């Protein structure tokens, strides 16, 4: 890479000056950032909507067992792959934060524009799960440890454990109770009942279904630990997935 301070590009030189070269690098950086962000947003959004789907769409699906189990596990895929890319290629500790921010931006556009703007579902029915503190956790564990193995074990476990507590500040208000026609409902249940979803009958909710009853009402910690454990395994797989696909070999054309 050559740089010259002379006016005009010397023969065989690409850049007229060092300033021009640096300007190009910075501009290219910004374009790369925007493109990367858009690609991650689109791909992670599709992935998360397909796998977390209704658990993330609706407030009356956000239970204490299935939601904190499923949502972190499926979110871990892109977080791990993105970390692999940003860390091994650039030593940037932003992989997980970037993908969850991208996902959240995509989800908020979708929820506001489509769910509210087009079909009038109130936002308190359709707001997405909060994930960003989990992104911070994963990125900073990787940065401090410098090890993807430690990140998988410590970061993966924390990823699962953090999910419910970081969502509770919004969710708590919708778990207040009301008596409707003599039936006990939480506000989350009631919002789901009031605001008609023609294609989403009540029975497809999976509210605390399963056989694990030993821990009584303390469902969340068990679900969170299980989720954290599976997130570790998912991290291993998807870190390598990210590594395999973090390559420019598909873009290397001899003629260029």
């Amino acid at each position: 890479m050559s740089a010259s301070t002379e006016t005009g590009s010397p023969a065989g030189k690409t850049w007229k000056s060092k300033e021009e070269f640096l300007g190009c690098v910075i501009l290219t950086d910004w374009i790369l950032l925007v493109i990367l962000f858009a690609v991650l947003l689109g791909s992670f959004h599709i992935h998360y909507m397909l796998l977390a789907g209704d658990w993330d769409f609706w407030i009356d699906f956000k239970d204490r067992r299935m939601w904190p189990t499923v949502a972190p596990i499926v979110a871990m895929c892109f977080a791990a792959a993105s970390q692999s890319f940003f860390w091994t290629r650039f030593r940037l500790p932003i992989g997980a934060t970037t993908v969850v921010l991208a996902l959240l931006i995509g989800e908020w556009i979708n929820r506001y524009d489509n769910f509210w703007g087009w079909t009038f579902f109130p936002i308190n029915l359709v707001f997405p799960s909060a994930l960003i503190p989990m992104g911070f956790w994963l990125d900073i564990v990787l940065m401090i440890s410098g090890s993807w193995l430690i990140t998988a074990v410590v970061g993966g476990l924390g990823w699962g454990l953090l999910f419910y507590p970081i969502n509770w500040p919004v969710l708590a208000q919708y778990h207040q109770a009301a008596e409707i026609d003599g039936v006990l409902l939480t506000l989350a249940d009631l919002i789901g009942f009031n605001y008609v979803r023609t294609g989403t009958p009540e029975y497809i909710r999976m509210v605390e279904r399963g056989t694990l009853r030993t821990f009584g009402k303390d469902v969340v910690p068990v679900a969170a630990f299980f989720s954290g454990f599976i997130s570790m395994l998912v991290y291993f797989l998807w870190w390598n997935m990210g590594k395999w696909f973090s390559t420019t070999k598909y873009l290397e054309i001899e003629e260029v």
Partner: protein
Amino acid sequence: MKSLNIQSLARCVTARAVRLWIFGLAVAGAITTLPAATPAAAHGERSQQAFLRMRTLNWYDVKWSKTELNVNDEMELTGKVHVFSGWPQAVAKPGESFLNVGEPGPVLIRKSAYVGEVPVPRTFSMDVGKDYEYKIVLKARRQGRYHVHVQINVKDGGPIVGPGQWITIKGDMKDFTNPVTLLEGSTIDLETYGITWTYIYHFFWMAAATAWILYWFMTKGIIVRYWQVKAGKGAELIGQDEKRIGAITLAAVLLAVVVFYAAANKEFPRTLPMQAGLLTGISPIDEPRSTVAVQFKGGSYTVPGRELRIRVKVANNGKEPVRLGEFTSAGLRFLNPEIFTTRPDFPDYLLADRGLSVSDPNPIAPGETRDLEVIVQDARFDIERLSDLAYDTDSQFGGLLFFFSPSGERQKAEVGGPVIPRFQAGAAL
């Protein structure tokens, strides 16, 4: 080679290219988001297979208490449903069902729903061969004209859509309120409850994430970092100072999580888990056994003529003579004009007020058994795609026959069975 690629890429990055790119994004965004969505005119009920609509749930006595409302007005959608005895094998039985409304989004909200006397905000169980009465209280939310159906979703069977009516709502959705009294006594507006805080909480974290990403991006960007990592100097990029910044950030994040969590618990000390579970034991309609028995003897469907002909043996075990007045199936009503001299209040697209005739119009006397040929003929049969019965894998029809006595008493009888398609006009049974 790599630097060549980057140089080539950088050469493409002109101000004009960037402007064009941003303009293209803006146009794509505008095209995909700005045009108003057109209202849905129907909810796909015609696309459901004919045998499924005819032989699962037979809707009758469906009424919409109002067809014009102002925002915040309430209306009732009431009626009865017969769970067909010959429920198709291809469709799961209605052991887990949900009373629903077919409408284009929550333009009316469902304030309450009952089957019989039992409130059904959740899934309930129905028995095959029984009749159930339902009531849904709806509250107008968004201005416009909407097609509103009763609907029962059956687990593993899908939505089974009942008759629909056009409902006009006047006013403005911004005036809509949905007051709910909490168990602890206070009243909230569920339409907007908690939304501002939800925005604040989410956007706080999104702003924090943006700051974190930009901080690292602004220190050496992407390309320079790539070169350094490639040159084996990756360790220099994350030194003790960087790790210290990370540790402080992580501590702040975790502290914020704890503070938010504790604040939520303090503000909402009494919370419950979501309520779910199957409602069983809902009683069907308690009605006397029908005094009219109908036995299906065979039938055919003439595809070009849109005509269903069925042969039935009718036994009148009552004390009054009866005449066949109505056949209903899949939400459609075919009326015998000799019985229905005035047109009932029912959506026109589902009401064939001259669609039923009988080979022998004389009343069936008490104690008499008579063979009848019943002819159901109307374009609505075809418009609602019930003629597709001929192309179903299970070409059996089903429905309800209503007989009427001179005193106005109504007797209901289920009828159904295989019908043979006739593809030529004028084909006889």
